[in-house]
């Protein structure tokens, strides 16, 4: 992305602006450097719950007026909490962006955290968690994550453990908010139909008076190298067997990250690092051919995420009704071993780069996505990361891909999770 205006206010708030005059729309994203990575055992789910409370009002914008005010002007908004960050966005008709600016500046410091609202939101979030628990793949992913990490806070799901959701108190939430919601722990990314200088002035007026705070102390235990393969089983309803295999992956800033991205593209198909944009079909990928075409699995997907600390690179497969989990695992192992033994061809790498270029074009089309990319890459490292994304991929060599496979996809670094059904799921008419 070209022509980015980068400016830091005296209070430490970093502002990134990208003009785009294709449509009369502006998208504002406020990013905070806080996520489940910052949560200690016993207090998991704080970041996500704080995000919910940010919709519960300030003295200036009481709870029930916020969402209606945005909708009335034709905008839409939402928020997401992830491993490393929490983000809030509004996409508005260009001439209505002032409301979004006022609203985000206000709730950076003035959210009420009314105890009654905290109590009501507790059951909403528990309901959100229970909805996820209905899904076998959530159960499996949560168990694999918990097993793969022994010390790092990535071991907990972003939504938090049920026990913590039942016991966290209003003051825990408010303290978390006060600690992390400060301008010098935030990034403001705005893209759309504006002139950068006048937008900067508009933002300065809204955000400049917010006092900076003490940089939050981070208490993050590095995960020690895994010393042996781990395995777990979940027993549940239905007739479908699911497998998740996870390996420890490098962080986004590590030189091995892009080679592993290419390896992922070869093994399980090209994926998008924009979590709001779908990847491609993966029917020419090595694992699809080895598993689905040979009728060992009905689907296979891979997932690599750009994170601050080493997270997981995982495969998820649904076992074919006539096959077994052992056969699927053996076939995945064979393909991984093949990549470790034999470097891919230059053609395969070129193909992975072209796929990434296409996916990047799709996921940069709207101003909402453009502002997303700016802020997201700043959370991981800096907005230059996204600017150099395709160049970095183009620089990957066949040897780099082989080395990344050898470094990260060894059996001793693996956590294997199985969802084994009781087999009593009905396949008849409902």
């Amino acid at each position, binding site marked *: 992305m070209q022509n980015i205006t980068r400016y830091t206010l005296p209070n430490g708030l970093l502002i990134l602006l990208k003009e785009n005059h*294709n449509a009369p729309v502006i998208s504002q994203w406020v990013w905070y450097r806080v996520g489940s990575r910052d949560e200690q055992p016993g207090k998991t789910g704080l970041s996500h719950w704080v995000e919910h409370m940010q*919709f519960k009002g300030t003295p200036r914008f009481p709870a029930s007026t916020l969402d209606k005010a945005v909708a009335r002007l034709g905008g839409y908004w939402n928020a997401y909490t992830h491993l490393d960050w929490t983000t809030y966005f509004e996409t508005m008709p260009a001439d209505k962006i002032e409301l979004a600016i006022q609203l985000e500046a206000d709730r950076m410091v003035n959210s009420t955290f009314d105890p009654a609202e905290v109590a009501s939101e507790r059951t909403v*979030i528990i309901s959100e968690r229970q*909805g996820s628990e209905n899904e076998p793949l959530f159960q499996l992913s949560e168990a694999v994550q918990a097993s793969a990490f022994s010390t790092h806070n990535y071991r907990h799901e972003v939504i938090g453990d049920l026990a913590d959701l039942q016991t966290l108190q209003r003051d825990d939430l408010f303290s978390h908010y006060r600690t992390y919601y400060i301008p010098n722990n935030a990034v403001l990314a705005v893209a759309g139909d504006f002139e950068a200088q006048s937008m900067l002035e508009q933002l300065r007026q809204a955000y400049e008076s917010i006092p900076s705070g003490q940089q939050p102390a981070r208490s993050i235990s590095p995960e020690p190298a895994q010393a042996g393969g781990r395995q777990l089983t979940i027993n549940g309803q239905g007739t479908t067997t699911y497998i998740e295999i996870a390996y420890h992956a490098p962080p986004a800033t590590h030189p091995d990250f892009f080679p592993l991205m290419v390896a992922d593209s070869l093994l399980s198909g090209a994926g998008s690092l924009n979590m709001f944009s779908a990847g491609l079909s993966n029917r020419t990928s090595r694992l699809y051919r080895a598993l689905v075409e040979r009728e060992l699995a*009905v689907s296979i997907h891979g997932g690599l995420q750009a994170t601050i600390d080493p997270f997981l690179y995982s495969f998820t497969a649904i076992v074919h009704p006539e096959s077994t989990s052992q056969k699927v695992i053996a076939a995945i192992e064979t393909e991984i071993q093949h990549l470790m033994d034999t470097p891919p061809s230059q053609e395969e790498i070129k193909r992975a780069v072209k796929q990434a270029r*296409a996916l990047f074009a799709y996921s940069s089309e709207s101003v909402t996505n453009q502002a997303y990319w700016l802020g997201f890459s700043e959370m991981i490292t800096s907005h230059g990361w996204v600017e150099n994304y395709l160049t970095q991929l183009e620089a990957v060599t066949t040897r780099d891909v082989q080395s990344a496979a050898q470094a990260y996809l060894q059996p001793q670094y693996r956590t294997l999770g199985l969802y084994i059904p009781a087999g009593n799921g009905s396949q008849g008419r*409902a």
Partner: protein
Amino acid sequence: MANQSFAHADTAVSLPGPANITRLELANGIVVLSRANSASASVVLTGSLPAGSLYDSDEKLGLAGFTASALMRGTHRRSFSEIYDILETAGASLGFSGGTHSVSFSGRALAEDLDNLLILLAEALQEPAFPEEHVERLRAQLLTSLAIRDQDTADVASLVFDQIVYRGHPYRRPEDGYADTVRSIQRDDLIDFHHITYGPRGMLITIVGGIDPVLVTEKVRQVFENWHTPGQPGNPEIPDVTPLDQVTTQVTQVPEKSQSDILIGAAGLRRNSPDFLAALLGNSILGQFGTMGRIGDAVREKAGLAYYAGSGLSGGLGPGPWQVSAGVNPENVDRAIDLIIQEIRRFTSEPVNVEELEETQANFIGRLPISLESNSGLASALYNLERHQLGLDYYQQYAELVRRVTREHILQVAHRYLDPERLAVVVAGPAPYEGSQ
């Protein structure tokens, strides 16, 4: 309202209308709509043709969806591998899915690769080979999807809802069928279904992106103008739905789940009904606006019972459902149902507030430019214009049409379609909910 434009963008982008949509109707009946988005490096292609599950027998329900899913498994010119090699090498995608009325398709590519996308679309539709091994592989995938559906509380609730609300109506059946019907489908059934049902009449293609619409519509002509299907069946008539005599409650147990899904509602109206826009605005007030409208306010915000609670209205070629949905802890099912029915009673007995209507109208009008910003949003807008015969100037008239909706009209429509004495109330989830309505 003609030629209303996006005044604040440097490059004034006009709302879609007769002056900037290229529309071509081929002699064989295919309609092509295209529009340039010069800011985009990519292109989106969407469309449909009338070959959905309405054409399926009860015994082979799921055949239409099976056929649609098999189109890309090989053609008389290319193997499965060759097809996906072309697509995935270019970072492009193309897929088909079977619905009730239609088979729909959707693809995207970098603009430079549109030709390949069109060629593959034409081959998949006109010359699919249905290779035997792929038919069996696909069957296993479809059966697995059905097994997963049986374990999904929202899917189970939806199946039961349709069986109650659409009893005796074509919409009562799930378009993906049942395990036993999918097992009974043979390769010859796919070939026959394709041979008889697939054809150009009623087919619609929209293409939007960094392309020249005139050139693109010409390319569509080249790949599709020789397609003819003598005896292609017409669109089946979709009857109206007879409302239920009384509130009808059904509880289906899906063991060992953490949460229950609730669906409450009735059959709604067709997209081309003169009442549709009033119903759509009303539905927004009931279960969409802000954090899911009045339903969200009552069930989520005030009572804290659910993460999702809202309403949906799907107006298609026939009377799609108008339903309120919520996911709640099994112990809270009764309370949530009471709150929802209370809101439906209020919605169908009192006009919405002046303020509610005004802010919803402002939302509908204000969000239009955002919904038309992306290629996929524009393609979807063009598709709806043609599919529901709204007129090419619909989006230019849209603000005025929205402003004309009155509180009285919404009340009238709400009362007619969401009568609280004739609702279906469906719950799918674990015990202990036993149903007490």
